[in-house]
Structure formats: C-alpha cells, structure tokens
C-alpha cells in the first residue's frame, strides 16, 4: 500500500488545459497529432443549389476545431433557404448566403476562422493558382460539369483531396478524389485484432522467462500456479506438445483444439489463467506472417523505386519489407494484453516485449538511415525516429487507398467506366448494391448539363435541375429516366456482355423509380438527409486530414428510403 508519507505530485499537474477540456471527447479518438492536422487545414466549400449539406458538413468540422474554412457562394438568401438551413436566421433574408452562413457557423467555435467569397464560380475558377491556399475542396451539385472538370484538374495538379456531393430528396452521394497513393499507418483496428504475442516464435528472453515461471509447474503451490501469465503457460505446453509431435507446433484447427483440450486444459480445470490460455489458443497459435494486403503495400512500386523525395511512408515500407524478408515476420508491436499475473511478473513480461519491439524498430531505423544515404535524401528531409517506431507498431494493420479521379459526365460523350466496367456491371446485377442510384445521379448531372434556365431560378448561373417546376414534372421524369436507362445500356455494352430477362427489366424499373424520387424532390434537399450526409462527409474529411482510420474508397451512396449506405469503387 502507498504510505501517506510519500510525496504527492504537485496539485494540478497534468490537469487538462481549457482547450483539452473542450476537445476531450474527440482527442480520445484522434489524439493531439490528429487535432494538429485538423487545425492546420483550410477547407473551401463551393456551395451550389440549396447548399444545406455543405453547411451541415462545415458545422461538424467547425465544432471539432478545423483551422479555417471558406464558403464560395454567390446566391442570395431566400424564404426557401430559411426553411431548410439552420445557419440562417429570419434577418438573413436578402443578404449573401455566404456571409450569413459563415457568420453563424463561426459562432460555434471562437478558435475557427471563416471566410466568404461571393464571386460567381465561373470568374473565380478562371484565376490562376486559385486553390493554392486550400488543403481540401468540397463541391456540391448542381454544377456545370465543364466547371467541375476544371476544379478537378486544379485539385489533381496540387494533390488536394476533393469531395463531390449530391443531396436530393431522400437520396445522397459523395465521391472522394485523393492522390493515387494514400497510405495510412494509424488505422485504429479493433483492440482485439492487435494482440501479437509470438508464441510460435519466441525469442530467447521470452522463452527464458517462460521456463523460469513454469519450472516445477506440477509441484508448485496452487497460489503460484494460478498466477502464471498465460503466455508462459502456452509456451510451456507448446514445448510439451512439440516433444510428442516431432518438434512441430499444432497447425490445423483440429490440432489446436486438441492442444487446448488435452494439454492446456489438463493443467487446471478452472483457474482463471488457464481459462485465458485456452481462450487464446486459436488466435495466438498463428505464424507471425503479414497478411496479403500488407505484403502488397510493402512491395508496391512506390516502396521499391525510391527517389530522393519519396514520402517517409515508402522509405519505411521498404525498410520493413527488408526486415520481413530477413526475419519472415514483421517488427514486434510490443503491447501485451492484460492477463492474470502477479504485478511484478506482468511488468517483467511487458518489459521483455517492449525491449524486443525497441530492438526491431532500431533495426528498421538503421535500414531507413542507409536508404536515406543511398537515395541521396536531403538532410532536411530526414525521417523522424518516432515515425519509424509508430510504423513498426502498426505494421500489421497499415492500409493503402489508391485514389482515382472523379467521374464527370461530358454531354455528348459516352460515360466511360474503364477498368471498373466489369466490376460495375457485377454491382448492377447485385440487388443489394446502390449502383443504380449512382447511375441515376450521373444521369441527373447530364440533365443539368444539357438544360439551362434563366439565372434567377434556383441554383443560379442558368442551371436547371429536373423537377424544378410542377409544369414540367412528367416530361423531366421521362427525360431523366431515359438518360439513366441509356447509362445502364452503355455500361452493359462497355463491359462486353448482356443481362438476361427478367433481370434486365427489373433493373430498368428500379432505376426509373429512383429517377422518379429524384425528380419529385426537384433539386430540393430534405434537412434530415442533408444533415446525415453532412455527418458522413465530415467523418471522411477528418479521416483524410488526420490520416487516421480508413476513408471511403471512393464513392458512398445513401438511400434514405431504405435507410442504408453503400460504397462503390468507381
């Protein structure tokens, strides 16, 4: 027991700052590094149409403390806006929507800076290097596809992640364009997936410790026996098993179950540490090989063909690949799950794992330093030791997203699905897939591109969306469905196949019903769907900015009628 004579740490040491208190619930997810990345961000929202989803997205980013945001929106606040946009108030009527939404969003967090641009999109986009100040771009539909293409080219050249968003009635979608190589180290796997104890490949220090703890297992006191850490039990019984099985460890499920029931369980019928050992058999008795996803990342071209300016991720990946080739295992993560044991034994065990993890990470670091020299890397680009340690810890769970350009309709030209055509066709045949909604939104964009209105109408800039007036409702519905049906046929043709009846007619009917729903909304947003979609997009923005968790690859659709989401790789 702690004696009261021991000096207490000074009061209020480590007590959180005001900022840490405000952000406490999110820092528990993405930590100080994630928060810093968020605060270094300047996002621009190019807000078209009713613009509710864009503003709701910003609400979810201003609250956690994004650095700066800019809203580009040249429209004037109307009565209809007041009914659906929470970041406008009755006195906003007749004023610039950009000014009003920026003002009310900024009330949410005094740390965040907001800016409004009221210039029309056409003239804004014609300026040189216009996106240089921004680190992320959000664009909402409806937008002239020719302008969207120009935004996309800018974004591609500057490698700025870009989101293109639809929210119409009960439906929404967003597509993300990120660079072609978007690696993530901190993927935050489920805690249960990260245990890596290496019981099949113990190093001498671990084996020695296990031997020491299990010597005289049959004769030791019940108390002592019931406090042997389960890792040591597994190592002990593996030795016994190997002696009976020509030196081989249990490999098949059957052998592992036999090992559990006939070896470990026989040691004690009901002690907690033996229970833990039995429960760990199936997941711990696996060779420490990396899964195929990780192996593919480690040997991808970016990792094998290094340049003096390769991003740190790829140098470390190369070094870890070398480590893996040498040792046939990844660097040890070093964490030990809690297990029944005496305090001192558990701490010793923890230190054995930590020391090995440090040793592995040091070996990787040596390779990284060699690679820095051999690739002629400038000293100012030297890789931080912490980054290497971090990568080593998470090596078994790294992830790579291969970003692709946004798919944009070009009126008069067939939409091309390219190398995704066959996969998209399989999506079309899968009743669970929301690819039909995706095609309907593409058709909606094509309708927008080929129909102009007077500038005063909703959306401004001469854009007309299907169903915008009651008069043309039926005609618009037929046109939109016609475009969507043609997209279905084009996809089938590009995939070089056909879909038999009755599936073909069923697909056409479902597409037509979706188009009817889209026309019914007439380009209007339902607040609930805007808010829901703004929540999903904000989550994705946070993942892209912090490079933590795994972002959507690359298009997410939401169906508010059936209440479900679906992700497509387009």
């Amino acid at each position, binding site marked *: 027991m702690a004696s009261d004579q021991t000096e*207490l740490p000074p009061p209020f040491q480590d007590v959180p700052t005001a900022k840490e208190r405000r952000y406490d*619930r999110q820092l*528990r997810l993405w930590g100080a590094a994630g928060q810093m990345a968020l605060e270094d961000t300047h996002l621009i929202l190019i807000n078209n149409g009713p613009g509710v989803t864009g503003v709701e997205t910003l609400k979810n980013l201003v609250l956690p403390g994004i650095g700066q945001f800019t809203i580009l929106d040249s429209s004037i606040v109307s009565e209809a806006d007041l009914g659906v946009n929470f970041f406008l108030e009755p006195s906003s009527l007749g004023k610039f929507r950009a000014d009003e939404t920026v003002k009310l969003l900024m009330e949410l967090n005094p740390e965040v800076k907001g800016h409004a641009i009221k210039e029309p999109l056409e003239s804004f986009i014609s300026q040189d290097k216009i996106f240089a100040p921004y680190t992320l771009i959000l664009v909402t539909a409806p937008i002239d596809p020719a302008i969207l293409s120009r935004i996309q080219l800018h974004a591609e050249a500057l490698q700025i992640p870009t989101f293109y968003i639809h929210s119409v009635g009960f439906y929404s979608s967003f597509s993300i364009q990120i660079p072609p190589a978007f690696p993530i180290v901190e993927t935050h796997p489920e805690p249960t997936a990260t245990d890596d104890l290496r019981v099949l490949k113990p190093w001498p220090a671990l084996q020695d410790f296990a031997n020491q703890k299990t010597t005289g297992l049959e004769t030791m006191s019940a108390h002592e026996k019931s406090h042997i850490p389960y890792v040591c039990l597994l190592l002990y019984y593996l030795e016994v098993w190997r002696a009976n099985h020509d030196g081989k460890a249990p490999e098949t499920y059957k052998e592992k179950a036999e090992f559990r029931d006939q070896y470990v369980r026989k040691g004690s019928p009901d002690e907690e540490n033996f229970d833990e050992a039995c429960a760990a058999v199936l997941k711990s008795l696996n060779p420490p090989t990396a899964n195929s996803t990780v192996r593919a990342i480690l040997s991808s071209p970016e990792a094998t063909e290094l340049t003096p300016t390769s991003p740190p991720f790829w140098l470390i990946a190369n070094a870890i690949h070398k480590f893996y080739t040498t040792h046939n295992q990844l660097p040890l993560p070093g964490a030990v799950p809690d297990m029944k044991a005496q*305090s*001192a034994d558990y*701490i010793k065990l923890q230190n054995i794992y930590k020391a090995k993890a440090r040793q592995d990470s040091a070996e990787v670091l040596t390779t990284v330093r060699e690679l820095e020299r051999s690739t002629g890397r400038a000293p100012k680009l030297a890789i931080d030791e912490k980054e290497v340690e971090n990568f080593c810890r998470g090596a078994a769970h790294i992830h790579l997203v291969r970003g692709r350009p946004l798919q944009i309709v070009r009126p008069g030209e067939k939409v091309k699905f390219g190398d995704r055509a066959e996969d998209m066709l399989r999506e079309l045949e899968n009743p669970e897939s929301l690819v039909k909604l995706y095609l309907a939104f593409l058709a909606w964009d094509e309708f927008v591109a080929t129909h102009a209105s007077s500038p005063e109408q909703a959306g401004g800039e001469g854009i007309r969306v299907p169903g915008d007036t009651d008069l043309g409702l039926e005609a618009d519905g037929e046109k939109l469905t016609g475009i969507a049906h043609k997209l279905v046929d084009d996809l089938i043709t590009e995939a070089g196949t056909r879909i038999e009846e009755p599936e073909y007619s069923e697909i056409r009917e479902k597409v037509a019903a979706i188009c009817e729903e889209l026309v019914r909304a007439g380009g209007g947003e339902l607040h609930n769907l805007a808010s829901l979609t703004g*929540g999903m997009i904000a989550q994705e923005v946070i993942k892209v900015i912090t490079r933590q*968790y795994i972002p959507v690859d690359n298009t997410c659709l939401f169906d508010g009628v059936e*209440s479900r989401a679906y992700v497509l790789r387009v």
Partner: protein
Amino acid sequence: MDRLLSRPGGFTEDEYEPGAIPISNIENFRVLVIGAGGLGCEILKNLALSGFRKIDVIDMDTIDVSNLNRQFLFREKDVGKPKATVAAEFVSRRVPSCKINAYVGKIQDKDEDYYMQFNIIICGLDSIEARRWINATLVGMIDMGNPDSLKPLIDGGTEGFKGQSRVILPTMTSCIECQLDMHAPRAAVPLCTLATIPRQPQHCIEWAHIIKWEEDRKDIPLDTDDPEHITWLYQKALLRAQEFGIQGVTYSLTQGVVKNIIPAIASTNAIIAASCCNEAFKLATSSAPFLGAPGTNNYMQYTGDSGVYTYTFEHEQNPACPVCGNLPRDLTINPDTTLQELVDSFAERPESQLKKPNMRTEEKTLYYSAPESLRMQTEGNLKRKLSELLADGEEMAVSDPAFAIDFRYKVRFS
C-alpha cells in the same frame, strides 16, 4: 420539403395522397425528445427544419465545457445552465414557427398521462437504464382497445465513429429489452486484482476510485465532475502505479475510467440523429416507407471507422423478453449455489443487469433488498442453498426497483 410532400414518389403506397394532408399531419404531430445532449441538439434542429411544430424536450443535465465540441446549441456562456432550456430556446429563436417546451428533470418524474400526449418519442440517451425505463413504460401503456396508446419509440446511440438507430413499435416489434445482452456491460475487474495485484493503469485508478476513496474520504460523496476529486483520485492512482512500476496513469485516463467516458464527435451524432428524424418524418407523412413496420427492417447499424458500412436489418422480437414477451427464460443453475450467489450474479448476467434484484416465486418471497422490514425478513434465505428454496422447474420472478420489469425465469437444476 413542401414540394416533395406535394408530389407522389417512386416508393410511396398507392393510397398516398400528396399535398395538404402530409403537411398538416406533420404540423400537428406531437414529438417528445428525450435527451438534449449530442444527439438531442441535432434531433431538435432536424425536427424543426422538417416541419414539426409541436416539440417537447426533457433532460436533467446541465452544460459542461466538454459538451461544446458537438452540442452546437450551447456556447461557453451557457456552461452550467440546463441543457433542455437552452436548447429549446435556441431552436425556437432560429426557427420561430416551431414551439418547443423544455422540462428539466428526470423521465421518471413523469407519468403515463404525460407520455400519452405524444404521437412519437425520440431518444438520444447515453444511459441504458433510462432507455430501459422508457421502453418498459411505453410497453406498459399499450391498451388494445385504444390505438392511440401505441407510441412509436425511435432510439439512437453513438460511440466514436459508430452508432445505431432503430424504430420500436411497443409490443408489435422488438424492443430495447428483447436484446439487452447486446448492451452487455464490460466485465468488471475483480476486486482482488485491484487490491493486491494491479497490472494496468486502469487497475490503479479503479483502486483509488473504489477502495482508497472509501478509506480516506468516505464522508465526502464523490463528484466525478469536481476537478478536485478527480485530481485526488489521479494522485492516489499515480502513487500506486509508481509503487508497482506501472506506466500510463494520466489525468485524462483517470477521468475516462472514473466517468466511463465514451468518445463522441459531432459528425457521428449528426448521422444518427438525422437517421432517427428521417424515420420520424416518414412515419408522420407516409411520404416513403419507414423502418420498423412489423416484419421489415427496423434497425440500422453505422460503422464509419473503416470506410462506411451500414447494416440495416430486422431485429426480431424475443418471445422470452421480460417486457414485451410472455415466456419465462430457462435458468440453468447448480442446486448447491446459495441465494446470495444468485443475487450477485444478476448484476452481471447480460440479459438482466439488475443491481438490486428482488426475487419471489408464486408460493413465497425469496429475497427483497427493500423496504428494510422485508429485507430483514428475507435476508436469512441468502445463506441457504437453492435446492432448499426452489424446486426444479419452478418459476421465479426477479425485479429491480429501478425498472418496472419482471424477469420470469424457469429454474433448471444442473
């Protein structure tokens, strides 16, 4: 929105008449929102901008600075004020045509007459106890002769990048209690680990929280919102960790363990709250099929930490549900177990989670923790073996003063 409600949709029923009817339905629909926190703020905003005009909100909490990263109706100057009032006033100011009544207090303060006024109830709660209470209350209100006694319950919850929303039609579809084991509490660390062999920073914190506080400050009620109290626990935990060579005790972890903090962000609240309100909107207007009709999907799980994944499915009613079912559950147990051991086990059984169980059979009272007179009369039974008190196959009812629920068990001796 009015435009959408004035036109037929691709998925509406043939009898659906667009126009004035759905619009007036929604304006006259009375909604009760339980909770004005992360989900509640979003729910109130969403309802006001979906055409609902008669809303009540109930919450007993006051605003804390750690709420401001997501509860967007509150500002720094509001810290310490009641959530329900501030939230209601803010939304009514932004959307003047929407009237919101606030009640600051517990849901248990209100009786059936109060709940009977509403057409629908939407919950944005972080406590499973409150969910169980309102669920049992709404099931108990069902009167087969009065269709208005059926109050749909829409429930949302979040944790980090994940969440779920569901629609419950009391007695007709699966309720909160039907799958209580889905909300199983985390296994508690055994007291002996805390007292003698701590290994994790959490063990040191729980020791300070459960054991040391009782030893040193038992006359002061622990207030987990008081920074002085948390600092005290943190310092005691830190000393204990140093003594055992354990690393990782921090102020933030202390707070997290003691208050059982669940990470929460604005974006996830937005997704789940909007999903709940979208279902309320569809229910009130019939403008599209809603989740929760018997025999259809009634539950959406959302997972946002690896890509986006939703699982929308039908949670099925449990015939042995203590609230909406009518069958007793089998309880297989060793006849040599004492009644005391059985009483203790009810707190941990995932399907019951009762901290103060009272138990009786048709014949006799086995044990009551309150009132005092009954407790004294029955505490003698605690030491006795079950084989002396119950017959194999006998039915036993277990209840807890915290909930209006009787768990029925059929005892099976192993």
